[in-house]
């Protein structure tokens, strides 16, 4: 079954990363790299998104489209990337998410394929 793991960062996470020393930050990135290597057999697709300020939102209002810059301003947790994985069931997807060493919020949803 195909699942999408959406990684989201709350505002505190950027502060947490910023507070790290260069070596600590590199170690954190390495951990993420290892996670991708360990799960390579399951991951069918991976997209990392550019920061939230690059986003453009189109909203349909009364039949016409309004384009604004940025994601919803009130958005507290911003999706920064996603992974598509082929696993047996939700428990396997949860186990993957549990070992994810990066940002603290992950939404897991089955993909309708």
């Amino acid at each position, binding site marked *: *079954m195909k699942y999408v793991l959406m990684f989201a960062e709350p505002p505190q996470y950027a502060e947490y990363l910023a507070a790290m020393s260069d070596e600590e930050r590199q170690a954190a990135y390495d951990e993420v790299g290892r996670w991708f290597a360990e799960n390579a057999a399951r991951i069918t697709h991976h997209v990392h998104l550019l920061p939230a300020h690059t986003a453009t939102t189109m909203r349909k209002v009364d039949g016409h489209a309004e384009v604004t810059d940025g994601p919803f301003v009130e958005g507290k947790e911003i999706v920064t990337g996603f992974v598509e994985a082929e696993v047996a069931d939700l428990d396997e997807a949860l186990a993957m998410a549990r070992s994810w060493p990066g940002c603290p919020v992950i939404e897991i949803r*089955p993909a309708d394929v």
Partner: protein
Amino acid sequence: MCDDVGRPHDELARVVRDHAGRLAASLVHLLGDFSAAEDLVQDAIETALRRWPVEGVPDRPDAWLFTVARNRGLDVLRRQARYREKLTQLQWPAREEPDDRLRLLFTCCHPALPRQAQVALTLRTICGLTTPQIAAAFLVPESTVAQRITRAKRKITDAAIPYRIPPDAELPERLNEVLTVVYLLYNEGYLSSTGDGAWSRRLAEDAEWLASSLVWTLPREPEVIGLLALIRLHQARACARFDAGGRIVLLPDQDRSRWDHAAIAEAGQLIARAAASGRPGPYQLQAAIVACHAEAPRWEDTDWAQIVVLYDMLLAVAPSPVTRLNRAIALRYHAGPEAAMKEVDALAEHLDRYPLLHATRAELLRALGAPEEAREADRRALDLTANPAQRAIIEDRISWTC
């Protein structure tokens, strides 16, 4: 157990309950569809509840239920070929798989489902309660319960929540989820916030039954045994908890001859069996504390030193301000009211909205010779509690000491 107070037992409901879980489990196992299997069982139970009182309970109630469920299923699913094929393969008794029902319980209590849905689904699917019964027990509208159950079942199917007992590595965490739900059911029944005696008793009995099924299937998990012991100990003393007028009788005033001493002794053996594994946990420790009370021949004989030690261990594995408050109450009888008061005062900030904190303060203030302040604390406790039994006790106390 409580027949002496004239509570007729519903044997019919018991038969249905004992078989519903196993039936649902085998149907889910073979159909692979949670929702369809559960509907079939509900239908069969409703038919049984209608017909058994008229026609008598059949010799083999389980086989009867299974046949009704299967025939009904064949009617409903005739258009769906892949189910029909599977249904015709069904035989009763199903393959000997003692853990089918347990798998169902773990599915109902999956951490991806909200707690309230876990509780509702467990009651409905495994205990065989109807939606209106669950709604009555938890004082929520029927439509809310129905919605929770529908959403949860849809999520189980759509998100592919697996129907299985989790692997060993995940078992402790998942088992915790299951034990919490069983404990919640028991508390709801025992503390009876609804005020309806019949439903409360049913919930308490269902929780005891679930706990004993868990022990039967996972005989080496100390916390499972601990939970069963805890529930058995509370149940063993349940008869003496209320007076003829339905008022709570406090522990020091209870008639200990009415306790089920055989059940208390058995619970003691359960605790010893759990302790032999050398893995103490919150349920085992709570059971041990309740056992100290239950095994004392008189209130004056209570082993308070032991109880304080057990609370210290409990605080080490599961720290909580309510546990600290309970320890403070024990400390009063072990080290005196001053020592207890110091502890209670330290907790006042965390538990300001908790009625038992103020009721405890009132008792201690009275023991320390400050009746005015004690009355004030009792009034504060009264403002905070909605439970009618608790209110009655505090009101009594205020009027006595006026």
